[in-house]
């Protein structure tokens, strides 16, 4: 299974709408880095509105892809984390402190614009 990555001007948009198994998560990591490389995108929004569970493995893959993208020069914002997901992540002891987040896609794009232009 592949997660589609959309290009919008200098941004990449991803909305995760599938139940992620480990392979899909790792494939997405690689696909996103390749897409950043190919498009020269400066900002990425990963929308998690439809994701109803993030375990420690998926959290690690997401945290890693944010850091990897940063190494390549692209900023990533995670958006739309559901209340139940936020609660379980903190229960698990995962705070994703260094990861930039926003309430929804719209605020995520605003945040990227501020970070990249401001």
């Amino acid at each position: 299974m592949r997660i589609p990555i959309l290009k919008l001007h200098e941004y990449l948009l991803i909305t995760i709408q599938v139940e992620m198994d480990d392979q899909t998560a790792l494939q997405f990591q690689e696909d996103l880095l390749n897409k950043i490389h190919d498009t020269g995108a400066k900002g990425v929004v990963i929308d998690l509105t439809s994701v109803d569970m993030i375990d420690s493995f998926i959290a690690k893959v997401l945290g890693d892809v944010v850091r990897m993208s940063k190494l390549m020069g692209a900023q990533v914002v995670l958006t739309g984390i559901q209340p139940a997901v936020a609660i379980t992540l903190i229960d698990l002891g995962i705070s994703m402190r260094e990861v930039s987040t926003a309430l929804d896609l719209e605020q995520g794009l605003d945040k990227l614009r501020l970070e990249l232009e401001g």
Partner: protein
Amino acid sequence: MDIQSCVEVRNEWDIVSARQLGRNMAKELGFGSVDQARITTAISELARNIYLYAGRGKICIEPIDQLGRKGLRIVALDNGPGIREIRKVMEDGYTTSGGLGAGLPGVKRLMDEFSIESTVDVGTEISATKWLR
């Protein structure tokens, strides 16, 4: 009502099957969305541990009713290498697989009751219960 359902865990996709089964059963029992997420996440961590450290095993999920108190119990069973230092694996951040080390201590916090029995070279049985509020 004690219909136990089990999922054999042999590969990464079985982890997804186990958590889907858990979510469906939690929903049926009347757990709210936050507890559904807690139960699903706990199953995912336990199933991944089986896959990573034992290679194969199974996750069994059963509704429980103790004197009218309802809940859901998850049992993770494997005949893997066992855990030598249980105290260590219950510490946050301890990992031998390059993960976040959030798994078992995380499961304990996500659920209401948690117990672990492990014998080196024999296997591991972890049981975790969530009560319906």
